[in-house]
């Protein structure tokens, strides 16, 4: 009952604090918008690059090569970022059965497909001519090819799509770490700093009830903020250019429900960590700094998980970074059972809350911040 009184008071108090509300909503609102624009910019660059024209830098007669490139959809214009240099003796050398050199100039560090397409089509043209020469000499073209490579892409999405998918998942996993940090610092270290903790401890409320009330308040705020972040994030990202990058995002209500449910135990674990850190911090500023560093945890684990293959186990954060890909992208990434991970996370949360309650019984908690 007393825990409920504390929960109600903390929610009322925090919702009246503009800084807490704005910092909680900022990630949910601005994060998806930022990701949306990054996707728009990269998808736009990909589209532009995919249809990038080629310019002829040195005027030369090469009708057969130009016809081959035109058939492959490569447009030849006067000025372009990719430049094809065809020497004057190109056609003559081809006719004599000699090797002809062409030059390709451009920014070779750009990973776009235009340059690769041009090179592939020139090699294709070269292969066709070589085959014609061999046939003319009575040699089967297969003589020149001892081994052929038959490469098949079994991944339905591109590497870029994978990366973007991972970014979206890490963004959602980060939400519980970002949403309620300010509130948690205020209801714990802030309580101590404004000297109201002494009043609270002098009431019949037990240390465990105080910690539970504050934990529930931070958890409610964290869950609501995370849910809002997921809903807004999916609605915005669903309207982004993700499909152009090969990412098929499922933004159905069922997916939203699943993602929020799967993030709920992690949100509660994070709330427990924030409350414990807050009560162990000497001041509001100390708590804020510690919790800011804490926000880097999901980012680090999330990006590290990209290099892991196979099952990752039921570990907090790591499990979520894999499991959320399921409902979001229809991925088949292995995931341990939700119940196991939730049990670990809620067990850790309970242990941390007990530690925080012990801290409230220490005479040091009443020392000056």
């Amino acid at each position, binding site marked *: 009952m*007393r825990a409920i*009184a504390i929960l109600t008071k903390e929610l009322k108090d925090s919702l009246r604090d503009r800084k807490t509300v704005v910092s909680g909503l900022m990630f949910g609102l601005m994060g998806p918008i930022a990701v949306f624009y990054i996707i728009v910019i990269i998808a736009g660059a990909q589209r532009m690059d995919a249809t990038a024209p080629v310019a002829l830098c040195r005027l030369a007669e090469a009708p057969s090569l130009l016809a081959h490139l035109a058939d492959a959809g490569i447009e030849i214009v006067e000025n372009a970022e990719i430049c094809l240099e065809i020497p004057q003796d190109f056609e003559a050398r081809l006719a004599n059965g000699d090797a002809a050199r062409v030059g390709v100039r451009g920014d070779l560090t750009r990973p776009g497909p235009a340059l690769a397409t041009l090179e592939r089509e020139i090699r294709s043209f070269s292969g066709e001519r070589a085959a014609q020469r061999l046939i003319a000499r009575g040699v089967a073209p297969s003589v020149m090819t001892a081994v052929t490579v038959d490469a098949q892409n079994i991944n339905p999405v591109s590497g870029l799509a994978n990366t973007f998918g991972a970014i979206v998942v890490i963004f959602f996993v980060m939400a519980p770490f970002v949403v309620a940090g300010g509130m948690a610092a205020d209801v714990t270290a802030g309580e101590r700093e404004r000297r109201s903790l002494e009043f609270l401890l002098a009431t019949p409320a037990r240390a465990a009830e105080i910690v539970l009330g504050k934990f529930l308040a931070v958890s409610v705020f964290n869950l609501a903020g995370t849910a809002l972040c997921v809903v807004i994030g999916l609605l915005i990202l669903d309207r982004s250019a993700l499909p152009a990058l090969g990412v098929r995002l499922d933004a159905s209500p069922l997916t939203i429900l699943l993602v929020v449910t799967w993030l709920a135990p992690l949100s509660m674990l994070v709330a427990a960590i924030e409350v414990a850190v807050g009560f162990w911090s000497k001041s509001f500023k100390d708590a804020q700094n510690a919790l800011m560093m804490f926000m880097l945890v999901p980012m680090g684990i999330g990006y590290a998980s990209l290099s892991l293959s196979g099952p990752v186990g039921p570990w907090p954060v790591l499990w979520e970074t894999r499991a959320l890909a399921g409902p979001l992208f229809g991925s088949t990434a292995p995931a341990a059972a939700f119940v196991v991970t939730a049990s670990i996370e809620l067990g850790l949360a309970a242990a941390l809350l007990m530690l925080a309650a012990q801290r409230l019984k220490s*005479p040091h908690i009443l020392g000056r911040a």
Partner: protein
Amino acid sequence: MIETNNLKKTFGKVTAVDGLSFAARDGAITTVLGGNGAGKTTAFRMIAGLIKPDAGYVLIDGADVARERVKAVSQLGLLHDEFGLYPRLTAREHLAFAGALHGLGGRRLRDAVERTIELLDLSALAARRTVGFSNGERMKVALARTLVHRPKNLILDEPTRGLDVYATRVLRDVLRRLKAEGVCVVLSSHAMAEVAELSDHVVIISQGRVRAEGAPGEITARERAADLEAAFVALTTETSMQRSVA
């Protein structure tokens, strides 16, 4: 009634309270006098169950604070010098929160809040958030919060610090009213004239021990001092010198 019996508390090598024993009666104002670092705040915190004594015990209306904390503190109100208000809550919300923590709910809670607002003449402030309140207004809200559950025992740690003369008078009037209602009031203060006027019983402590206790007039006469301040200085200086020599 509050009774402390042989209370001891050390922090590392520092002995804050060293065998403190005194009793504060119902319907009386007991003032604990002591210089800075004499152990008043530590003693009050042990009485309120905020910290555990290394030895000794505290009884509040017969309930041992260490063994029956909830029962004991249900009959206690604690006001410390910095008040510790929540700037985004209104005065009325402060009282409702404190009442709820003391187990009040529904109509009982609403009645308790309105009665306390009336007692401390807080109507004009009740609906305002406490951010920007003057020191006197903050004291009134903090005191009201301490009284909302009608405790039979009240502890005030330097309540007049930082208050102007008007706020001090308000506090004095409230304490007299509470005393008349049979409440056991224990406070600490440095304002000797006020202590002499307001207190029924004075406990002078130094280095965590009781040096003298009794009615203000009795202590002054016993020490053959001109007033309570002179008696206090004589008692506490003597103790400090004895310690220095030892």
